[in-house]
C-alpha cells in the first residue's frame, strides 16, 4: 500500500514537472519574447526559483539524516547552506548580474579576454563540480525509491535522469523559472504537512514530566564533530556557495544589480523558513528512529511517519515526502544538467543545439552510472565535500576577479589548479584511510576546506603579484562594468513595485 501511494506521488511530481515545463515554454513563446520576459522576473518568483533549485537531496533528506547521525553538529549544515547565500549576496550577487556573464567560464572570459586556457580550466572545473553534485542526487533517488517502495536501487536514478533529459532537451527547463519556483513551495509543503502531523501526534506524550526530561539527554547523547571539523565545514559551505554553477545562472534573470540583491535577501528568508523543518524532523528522528544506523540515516524523514502513525495516514504522509524528495532531485539535477550541458556543448560541440542535446544525455547518464557503482555516503556530507571543492577553486576566481583589479589570468590559473589538486587529492586520500582514526592529520584530509581555501587564495594573490605586467589593459573598465549601478537604476525608497516588475 505504501508503495502504491508513493509511486503515485512520484508519478504526479514527474508528470507535473514535465507538463509545466512543456506548456510553460509554449506560453512564454506566444505571450512575449522569452528573453525579454526572463530579464523582468519579479524578485519573489526568482527567489522561489533559486530556492527550488538550491534545495537538493542534501537539504531535503540529508540534513535530518545528519542530525540523527551527529546530533548537534549536524545543525551546522543548514546554517552553512543559508549563510553561504549571505556571502553570495555580499560579494557576488550584484556584480555578477552586471557582468552580463551567463556562466562562470563566461565571467572568466569577460575578465580575461586573452586567456583561452583560463576559460578551458574553468569549464572543466564546472563540469567536475556539476557531476560531483548530481551523483548525490542520484544516490538520494535510489535510496528514496527503494525504501518507500522496495523497487531495486537503479530505478530511482533512471527515472530522475529520464525526466531531466526530456525536460532539458525539449528546452523547457531553462526557460521556465516557473517550474523551479513551483518546486520550492511544493518541497516546503511536503515537509510542513508531515512535520505538523507528527508534532501534533507526539506532543501529548511529553506532558509526562519524566518523558520530557529525558529529551535533553537523548539529544546530547550523540557524539558530534570536533572543533576543527566544524570550522572547516563552516568555511566550505560559506565560500562554496559562491561558486555553484547552477545557482549563478539564476541571477541573470534579475533586471538589475539592485534587484539581484533584493532577490538574494528573499532567498535568505525562504531558506531559513525551509531549514526549520528538516531540523525539527531531525530532532524527532533522534527521538523515534535512532535505530536506523549510519547507512539509512538519510531515510529518517521517509520512515518517521510510519513510526508514529499506522495505516493509511502513514502511507499518505510517506507518499507526500517521497513526492517532495523527487521534486528536490528533479529541480537540482535539471539546474545542474543545464549548466553542465551548456559547458560541455560549448567545449566539445561548438555550442550547437544538437551538441547541447547530446551533452544533456551525457550530463545525466554518467552520474547515474557513477551512482550505481558507488555507495552513498551521508548525503549532506557528500554535498559538503563538493562545497569544499568549489570553495577552493571557483570561489577565489570569482571573489578576486570581482574585487581585485590586479588579478592576472596566470594567477587565477595557478590558484585554481593548486586549490583543485589539494582539495581533490585530500578528499580522495581520506576515502582510502580507515574510518576509525581521528588524529588531526586525518581530519585535515577529510575536511580540507580550512587549509585548501586560504591556500588557493594565497597562491592566486602571490602569482598575480609576480606577473603584475600581465594585468589586463581593460581591467579598470571591466571593474567599472561590474560595480557601477545601472543607468536605469532608481534609488531605493521610491515605490519599488514598478521597478521590480
Amino acid at each position, binding site marked *: 500500500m505504501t508503495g502504491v501511494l508513493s509511486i503515485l506521488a512520484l508519478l504526479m511530481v514527474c508528470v507535473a514537472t514535465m507538463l509545466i515545463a512543456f506548456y510553460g515554454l509554449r506560453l512564454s513563446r506566444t505571450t512575449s519574447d522569452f528573453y525579454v520576459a526572463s530579464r523582468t522576473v519579479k524578485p519573489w518568483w526568482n527567489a522561489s526559483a533559486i530556492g527550488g533549485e538550491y534545495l537538493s537531496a542534501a537539504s531535503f533528506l540529508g540534513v535530518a539524516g545528519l542530525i540523527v547521525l551527529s546530533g548537534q553538529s549536524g545543525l551546522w549544515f543548514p*546554517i552553512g547552506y543559508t549563510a553561504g547565500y*549571505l556571502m553570495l*549576496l555580499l560579494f557576488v550577487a550584484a556584480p555578477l548580474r552586471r557582468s552580463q556573464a551567463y556562466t562562470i567560464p563566461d565571467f572568466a572570459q569577460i575578465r580575461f579576454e586573452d586567456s583561452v586556457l583560463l576559460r578551458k580550466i574553468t569549464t572543466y572545473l564546472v563540469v567536475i563540480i556539476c557531476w560531483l553534485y548530481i551523483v548525490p542526487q542520484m544516490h538520494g533517488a535510489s535510496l528514496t525509491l527503494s525504501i518507500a517502495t522496495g523497487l531495486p536501487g537503479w530505478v530511482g536514478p533512471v527515472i530522475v535522469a529520464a525526466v531531466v533529459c526530456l525536460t532539458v532537451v525539449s528546452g523547457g527547463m531553462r526557460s521556465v523559472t516557473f517550474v523551479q519556483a513551483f518546486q520550492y513551495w511544493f518541497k516546503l509543503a511536503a515537509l510542513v504537512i508531515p512535520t505538523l502531523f507528527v508534532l501534533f501526534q507526539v506532543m501529548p506524550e511529553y506532558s509526562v514530566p519524566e518523558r520530557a526530561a529525558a529529551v535533553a539527554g537523548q539529544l546530547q547523547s550523540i557524539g558530534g564533530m570536533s*572543533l576543527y571539523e566544524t*570550522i572547516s565545514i563552516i568555511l566550505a559551505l560559506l565560500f562554496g556557495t559562491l561558486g555553484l554553477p547552477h545557482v549563478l545562472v539564476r541571477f541573470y534573470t534579475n533586471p538589475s544589480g539592485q534587484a539581484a540583491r533584493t532577490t538574494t535577501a528573499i532567498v535568505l528568508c525562504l531558506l531559513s523558513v525551509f531549514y526549520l523543518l528538516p531540523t*525539527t524532523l531531525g530532532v524527532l528522528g533522534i527521538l523515534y528512529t535512532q535505530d536506523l544506523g549510519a547507512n539509512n540515516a538519510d531515510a529518517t524523514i521517509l520512515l518517521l511517519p510510519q513510526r508514529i502513525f499506522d495505516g493509511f495516514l502513514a502511507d499518505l504522509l510517506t507518499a507526500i515526502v517521497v513526492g517532495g524528495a523527487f521534486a528536490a532531485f528533479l529541480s537540482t539535477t535539471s539546474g545542474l544538467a543545464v549548466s553542465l550541458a551548456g559547458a560541455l556543448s560549448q567545449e566539445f560541440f561548438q555550442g550547437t543545439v544538437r551538441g547541447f542535446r547530446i551533452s544533456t544525455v551525457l550530463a545525466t547518464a554518467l552520474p547515474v552510472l557513477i551512482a550505481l557503482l558507488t555507495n552513498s555516503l551521508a548525503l549532506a556530507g557528500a554535498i559538503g565535500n563538493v562545497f569544499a571543492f568549489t570553495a577552493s577553486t571557483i570561489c577565489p576566481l570569482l571573489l578576486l576577479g570581482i574585487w581585485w583589479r590586479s588579478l592576472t589570468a596566470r594567477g587565477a590559473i595557478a590558484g585554481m589548479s593548486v586549490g583543485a589538486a589539494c582539495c581533490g587529492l585530500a578528499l580522495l586520500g581520506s576515502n582510502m584511510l580507515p574510518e576509525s582514526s581521528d588524529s588531526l592529520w586525518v581530519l585535515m584530509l577529510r575536511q580540507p576546506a580550512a587549509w585548501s581555501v586560504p591556500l588557493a587564495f594565497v597562491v592566486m594573490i602571490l602569482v598575480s603579484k609576480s606577473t603584475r605586467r600581465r594585468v589586463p589593459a581593460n581591467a*579598470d573598465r571591466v571593474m567599472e562594468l561590474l560595480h557601477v549601478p545601472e543607468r536605469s537604476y532608481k534609488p531605493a525608497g521610491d515605490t519599488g513595485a514598478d521597478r521590480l516588475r
Partner: protein
Amino acid sequence: MSPEQDRFAEQRPQRVRVQAPQNASLNIAAARPEQSAETFYVRQLIRSQLRLAVAVAAGLLIMLVGISAILAFWPVVAQVTLFHIPLPWWILGVGIYPMIIVAGLLFNRAAARNERRYRSISR
C-alpha cells in the same frame, strides 16, 4: 514554377543554424587617460562596497566560529534547557537564521546607499 514564386524564393532569408556565441567576451576597451577622474570615483565605490562586504562577512564568520568554539570548550551550555531542549539546539537550529536575514537586509540598504553616493558624486 512561375516567376512570381521565384522572386519570393530569392527574398527568402538564408537558413541560419542557431549556435551559442563562441566568444563571450564583451571586447571592453582599455581605459583612456582622460577618464582617470571617473576611474578614481569607481575605485572609491569599489573600495567602499568591499569594505562593507568584508565587515559583514567578518562579523558573520566571527559569530559562527565563536559559537562553535564556545560550544566546544564550554559544554556546560548544553545543561541549560528551554522547553526541555538544550540551549545549543535553540541557538543553532533557530536563533542564527534571523541574524543572517538581518545582516542581509542591513547590507542591502548600505550597499544601495553607497551606490547613491557614487551617483551623486560622479554626475
